[in-house]
């Protein structure tokens, strides 16, 4: 029991969480933009998986993790443009397009693995160059923080930066204000001179770029390989983080980090002989728990809100 409690606060778990969190945080911070702009996207998993593949490919071909990630971001944006054309231009339903894209992505990457690398299931090669870890000198002196934060790959730090940047963009710039306006009341935003379509597109592309980067981190964080369905549900966790965090980049990142933390905790806790099936449930139960708590808090806060109960609108677009 004591061991378990110690594990909960151990720096090892937090260090693991920081690493695991990077793709989740980056992906979900991107998702904040679409959420705020009122576009309903479920397809995080698609963007991440596709870009994980192309990051592997890019890194393999160019010999540079950064270039690989860039290629991944490009491809992810291309897929996003497909989504945008279908949903914005052709008025297709966002949910159905998302689901189709998610399952399409799995089939496409697996087939690409065959046609590009002539392998099935996984591709592993020393020529896939991963991101380098970065050592921050002044952290060397600080005992716990050094373990938790130092010597991580670049994108881990980028995740923190992106969260802050997204917050500033969302709440401190005209762009963010208008973006939120578009999501809140599109007609009103239009009369305020906002080009709705442009803002929705911009948000979508930001999201795809972030998911692309998030996806690229997964194969390039050291393992230097791609396996089919490599993202294994991370996209859904990103989505959950965005919905729980309500599109606020800081809250969303915290939730994403929480998922990563439970994941890291799992890896330690399985050593104690607890049933893995139950331990694996932790992140998902955590989502529900966080939702309940946040709703309870919101309810207490809304002492003055609109009277009658509000229901989420039917999901369209």
């Amino acid at each position: 029991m004591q061991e378990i409690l110690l594990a909960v606060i151990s720096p090892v778990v937090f260090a693991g969480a920081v690493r695991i969190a990077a793709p989740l945080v980056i992906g979900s911070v991107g998702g904040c933009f679409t959420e705020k702009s009122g576009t309903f996207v479920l397809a995080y998993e698609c963007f991440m998986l596709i870009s994980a593949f192309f990051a592997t490919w890019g890194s393999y071909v160019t010999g540079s993790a950064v270039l690989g990630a860039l290629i991944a971001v490009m491809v992810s944006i291309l897929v996003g443009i497909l989504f945008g054309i279908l949903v914005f231009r052709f008025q297709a339903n966002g949910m159905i397009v998302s689901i189709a894209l998610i399952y399409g992505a799995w089939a496409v990457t697996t087939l690409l693995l065959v046609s590009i690398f002539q392998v099935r299931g996984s591709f592993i090669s020393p020529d896939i160059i991963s991101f380098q870890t970065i050592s921050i000198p002044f952290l060397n002196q600080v005992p716990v923080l050094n373990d938790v934060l130092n010597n991580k790959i670049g994108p881990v730090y980028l995740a923190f930066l992106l969260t802050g940047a997204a917050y500033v963009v969302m709440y401190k710039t005209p762009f963010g204000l208008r973006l939120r306006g578009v999501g809140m009341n599109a007609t009103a935003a239009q009369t305020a001179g906002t080009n709705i379509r442009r803002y929705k597109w911009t948000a979508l592309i930001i999201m795809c770029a972030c998911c692309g980067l998030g996806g690229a981190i997964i194969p390039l964080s050291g393992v230097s390989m791609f396996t089919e369905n490599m993202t294994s549900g991370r996209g859904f966790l990103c989505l959950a983080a965005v919905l729980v965090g309500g599109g606020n980049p800081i809250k969303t990142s915290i939730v994403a980090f929480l998922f990563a933390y439970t994941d890291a905790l799992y890896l330690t806790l399985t050593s104690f002989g607890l049933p893995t099936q139950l331990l694996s449930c932790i992140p998902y139960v955590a989502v529900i728990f966080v939702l309940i708590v946040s709703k309870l808090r919101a309810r207490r806060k809304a002492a003055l809100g609109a009277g009658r109960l509000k229901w989420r609108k039917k999901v369209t677009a």
Partner: protein
Amino acid sequence: GCGKKEEDAAAGGEETSGETYKACFITDGNLGNDFVDLIWKGFQNLEQEGWEIKCIEATDNSEFADDIRSMAGEGYQVIMTWEDNVSQAALNLADEIYKNYPKTHIFLLDTYVDHDKPNCTSVSVDPFESSFVAGFVASKMTQTKTIGWIGHTDVLKIRRFRDGYIAGAAYGDPDVEVVYSFTGDYLDPTKGQEAGSAMIANYPVDIIYQSCYLAGPGVIKACSEGGIKCIGVDDWQGDLDPCVFWSAIKPMDVAVTQVALDYKDGKELPKQMDFNIAAGGAVYDERDLKNIPEELQKEVKQLVDDISTGKVDVYKNFEEYRLEY
């Protein structure tokens, strides 16, 4: 299909004998991980022998029955199934197949099933022994007296690896402590990497034995980064990273080729076959011997001999894993 052209097989097979032998592999896990590739290697050996081979990667449990029926209908004499769910489906269909296609024989790969179907053979290469030897080697090689094991999920099949390893380690050195954990996902190497890193950070392990499918390379990577040694699984994994000094191999390819040729030769096929050490199965790769001290090499060889002659009972404290055939 598996990207293999049937024409090649047909071209190779035609002239050697009057009847073309056809073998089909129905797998629940896709090609692309060491174990399935290993099985497929066995099929490719058959292809060399002039067989026609086919691999079907079934992704969903609802497809198994269709696939088995149809392949029997297509005239495949040898059908091999992998992953217990496929094998279970095959067992359920066995009587029907026997009635309609009496010549077809089904090999249930990597299962340990007791059954009464005349046209089925369960073929296993029990990882317990190879894990036992790996545990023995690890217990002799460890400096810190702590060794680790990482599997993908806590399911029965994977526990054979863990417990064989523990038994072997205890046999080699009762003072060695074995720690274990699970990645929770068998497709995600980054989870494997994290699990490896966490174990290295949490315990003074200096050797980790991984049994986690596609997450395995992640564990190997973590060991390499953490500067410790790793033991590979299924196939020889020394090619993945220099830190892999030993592999607990499971020579399924040999078994596959062997049973298929037995069938072709018209030998009597038992209901169960285990390619254990006693039956001449290998548990390690010769290439790894150079990685351990000479003295230990001898000990390992001695151990394998002892297991083969029954002097050492690997299942001693783990009766539930003992195979009754």
